[in-house]
């Protein structure tokens, strides 16, 4: 009620005095913020740790390194699994994109990009194309075929006004979603290279995006250097939810397997869990001894485990429900920059500034 009255008062004032308008709008914004805070506080009726204390802890957790993928001559910056659960695409700071058979550790394709810092790469759902980009501000598609060099058929699809930080195909090879240092995300038609929808709202570089796994959702989440995560409607281009809480850059966002929540990894050395329907943070994964930033997060298939790759060369494995650390992998000899659980949930791949990728199971 107060909001509506204020709104009318503000509109009446528009022509009168700019200063007064600003104050009026600020008042309404403050009152709405207060109302939102109060409501969220009221609904925050329990702490996750307390609500899950009867659930048994995860015992005897073991995970071993099974394969090492050697071939990059620069820092590995990004990786993505193919849906066949066997192939992996990775990209590195020296401008290389490699496609691996993770069972045999053989390299099946190697592409040299006309840029360094290839920060984004993604496997198409059919397994027939890969996309990547970085400091060239572009997202380039490479069809994979055994007969031809992928370079001969490459096609630049997306162009941003700053570096490409992340990209992911939607449900088919036909559309690709990109995130950029220009603080926007965009959806592109792969065939024509046309922009379908752009997403404005972040006040800093977008670092990571992830599509909702729910079929009807049409949602994706983005996180960036403005410390907030935003949930977007892909059809309208509208930001439908904003999640605050992190004290530094968000480097990674990943949907919970049911699509009801998502996790974030941040330079503030925490990982957090945000629930869409509760519209708030529901858990924070941290330890006093953990002071380095988290670059990448992913869930196990049931959503029980959250893997985080950190700047202190480790992977921390969190119990999503109970909030404790289940295990720690002394995974690499430099920063863990990216990680991903295989589509069937049987293995974890990590990539590092030590030039290698490793498969854990």
């Amino acid at each position, binding site marked *: 009620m107060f909001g509506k009255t204020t709104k009318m008062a503000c509109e009446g004032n528009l022509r009168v005095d700019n200063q007064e308008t600003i104050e009026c709008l600020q008042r309404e914004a403050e009152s709405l913020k207060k109302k939102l805070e109060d409501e969220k506080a009221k609904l925050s009726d*329990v702490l996750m740790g307390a609500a899950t204390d009867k659930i048994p802890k995860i015992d005897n957790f073991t995970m071993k390194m099974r394969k090492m993928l050697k071939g990059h001559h620069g820092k590995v910056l990004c990786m993505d699994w193919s849906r066949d659960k066997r192939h992996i695409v990775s990209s590195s700071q020296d401008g290389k994109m490699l496609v691996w058979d993770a069972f045999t550790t053989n390299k099946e394709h190697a592409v040299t990009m006309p840029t360094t810092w290839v920060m984004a790469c993604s496997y198409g759902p059919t397994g027939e194309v890969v996309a990547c980009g970085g400091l060239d501000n572009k997202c380039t598609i490479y069809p994979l075929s055994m007969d031809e060099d992928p370079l001969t058929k490459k096609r630049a699809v997306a162009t941003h006004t700053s570096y490409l930080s992340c990209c992911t195909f939607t449900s088919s090879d036909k559309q690709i979603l990109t995130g950029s240092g220009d603080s926007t995300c965009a959806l592109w038609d792969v065939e024509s290279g046309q922009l379908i929808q752009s997403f404005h709202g972040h006040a800093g570089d977008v670092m990571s995006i992830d599509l909702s796994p729910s079929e009807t959702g049409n949602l994706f989440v983005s996180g960036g250097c403005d410390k907030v995560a935003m949930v977007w409607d892909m059809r309208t281009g509208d930001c439908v939810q904003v999640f605050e809480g992190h004290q530094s850059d968000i480097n990674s966002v990943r949907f919970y397997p049911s699509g009801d*929540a998502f996790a974030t990894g941040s330079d503030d050395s925490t990982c957090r869990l945000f*629930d869409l329907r509760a519209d708030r943070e529901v858990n924070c994964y941290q330890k006093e001894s953990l002071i380095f930033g988290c670059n990448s997060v992913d869930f196990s298939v049931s*959503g029980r*485990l959250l893997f985080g790759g950190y700047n202190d060369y480790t992977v921390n494995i969190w119990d999503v429900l109970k909030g404790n650390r289940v295990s720690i992998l002394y995974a690499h000899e430099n920063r863990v920059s990216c990680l991903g659980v295989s589509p069937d949930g049987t293995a974890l791949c990590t990539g590092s500034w030590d030039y290698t990728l490793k498969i854990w199971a």
Partner: protein
Amino acid sequence: MSSAVQRLQKQLTQLREEAKVERIPVSQAIEVMKSYITEHSQGDALVIGVNQSDNPFRDQKSCAIL
């Protein structure tokens, strides 16, 4: 109109939309999450352990005689 007013109006539009969002209590959100995990826990190889005989990433034992 000044850019400050435009920025504020954009923020207000966002806040008004947020005010309309229907929220569930945190306890309910956690219950939903718990039942999802229970339903899917048997298929989560990284929690229950990978059966090593059908782990494709395991090193194949080479024949000793060869």
